[in-house]
């Protein structure tokens, strides 16, 4: 935990000096997949965006429009067919512990306990056992899973599994958190609660966050800025919204509803 905090706080100090260099830059990203060895699928076209340091950026779009692909490109799991991704001015070529990814379908290691899952990142990076236990425990507490350390994933509910996913990504001390529809499989109530939790965690441990969702409410509730994608392949950028509502936000706030109306109208146009 120490090392992670240290890294990020030092980073923030550096960043104060040149506030105008963005954290992540995507330059004209396109992606073409080859399916079943014979078919080319054009998934993303000409995506350009900049993410500021400690910004909560939400990428909004309906299913199958390439949101996950974009996130995986930024994570370094896929290489873009055209264009580049820059992280602090460096081209991204492969995944690294500076970016943490939370998966839509949890992707927990079924054979490890909650503790084992959360401490995986530090373990892979050679952090000694006692220290990584401490780091993991800190993030387990942060996501509210204390007392569940020794449970296996199949003993947890969906919301709890995703908390483990979030804690696992955080425990590796990333500067950027990438979340891919993390609450897509949860019921509405748990989902709203998890959104509040996400905001709380983000306020406690400020990070640059890229959050992918298909839910307009969720986007407005969380985002500093929303980038919406067009609803058909290839996915292009549709529009960008700055959300400057004060936090914590209320779903029933007039301004909230107004924004929601606006984004809904705009996105049905592009469908």
């Amino acid at each position: 935990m120490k090392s992670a905090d240290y890294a990020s706080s030092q980073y923030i100090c550096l960043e104060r000096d040149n506030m105008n260099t963005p954290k992540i830059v995507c330059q004209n990203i396109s992606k073409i997949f080859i399916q079943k060895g014979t078919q080319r699928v054009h998934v993303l076209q000409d995506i350009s965006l900049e993410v500021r340091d400690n910004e909560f950026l939400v990428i909004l779009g309906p299913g199958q429009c390439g949101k996950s692909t974009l996130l995986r490109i930024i994570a370094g799991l896929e290489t873009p067919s055209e264009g580049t991704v820059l992280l602090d001015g460096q081209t991204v070529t492969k995944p690294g512990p500076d970016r943490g990814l939370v998966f839509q379908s949890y992707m927990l290691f079924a054979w490890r306990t909650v503790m084992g899952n959360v401490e995986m990142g530090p373990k892979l990076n050679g952090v000694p056992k006692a220290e990584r236990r401490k780091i993991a425990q800190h993030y387990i507490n942060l996501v509210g899973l204390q007392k569940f350390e020794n449970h296996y994933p199949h003993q947890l509910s969906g919301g709890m599994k995703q908390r483990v996913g979030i804690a696992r990504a955080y425990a590796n001390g990333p500067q950027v958190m990438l979340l891919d529809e993390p609450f897509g499989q949860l019921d509405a109530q748990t989902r709203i609660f998890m959104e509040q939790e996400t905001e709380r965690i983000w306020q406690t441990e400020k990070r640059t966050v890229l959050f992918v969702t298909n839910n307009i409410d969720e986007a407005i509730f969380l985002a500093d800025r929303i980038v919406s994608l067009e609803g058909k392949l290839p996915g292009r950028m549709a529009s960008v919204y700055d959300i400057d509502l004060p936090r914590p936000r209320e779903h029933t706030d007039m301004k909230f509803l107004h924004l929601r109306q606006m984004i809904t109208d705009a996105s049905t146009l592009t469908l």
Partner: protein
Amino acid sequence: MSAMIKQPTNSGTGDRAIANEVQEAVGEKKPMTIYRVITNEYFLYCVSTVTFLLVWQVIGQSDMFKGALASPVQVVLRFDRMLTDTLAGLTLWGHIWASTSRVLIGFALASAFAIPIGLFMALNPYVDAIIKPVFDIFKPMPPIAWVSIAILWFGIGEPSKIFIIVIGTFVPCLLNAYTGIRLIEPELYDVVKVLGGNRRDEIIQVSFPASFPAIFAGLQISLSNAWTCVLAAELVASRSGLGFIIVQGMKMSDTSLVIGGMVIIAIVAWTTSLLVIILEKLVCPWKRKLEGF
């Protein structure tokens, strides 16, 4: 096994959500009625077992099968004698041990080679391209078909029996280790990559543990194959073992010996498979119990 989740008392943050997400099974107490007793599964188990034994006893005593079916009582008495008398120089325990040791040696040998080869094939496309085609030639060959070759090669001694068991056990071990790795969700590897792991970490942290359940399923199949093979080998040519007891019974027209031999085989085979299950519980405590037989 079931979701036994204790509610945290003072976690401060997670209380509400976690409490909502917990599902607890509450057992209902229903009054005992005759209908409920009769339709109780365990009651029916007892009824069925007792009826089975009784019917068998009655048929065995009558001469419906003209003496070709020994009754349970005859079988038990015969095997009581076998515990102290010897058949071909060995008591019953000796014969049980003869078969079991063959199975264990062949089984251990085969899994020691087959599992690593299967893992290696699944992890390296070049090894796969070399071994898979040759393996596919041998795959559909029934294990018992090897009995004859084994006797031509090794005669009728111990080596030929071990060889047959190794052959019969090899295929499912290798195949399950192979498919176990092939069926792993590729995104799990992405998790390791994103956390900063390399290819070696992917294999150690994901490939191996994720393939354990499939490997154990393969061991179960292998074990039952191994018992079939050892019996086949002992039926064809041997001086000891449970298969030998059955053949002796056949030659002496002693059905109580034959049936008793079969019962003992069932018990011993069942015990060894129970051992594999226990081993699996120890190695994979995380495995959820699935709906099965």
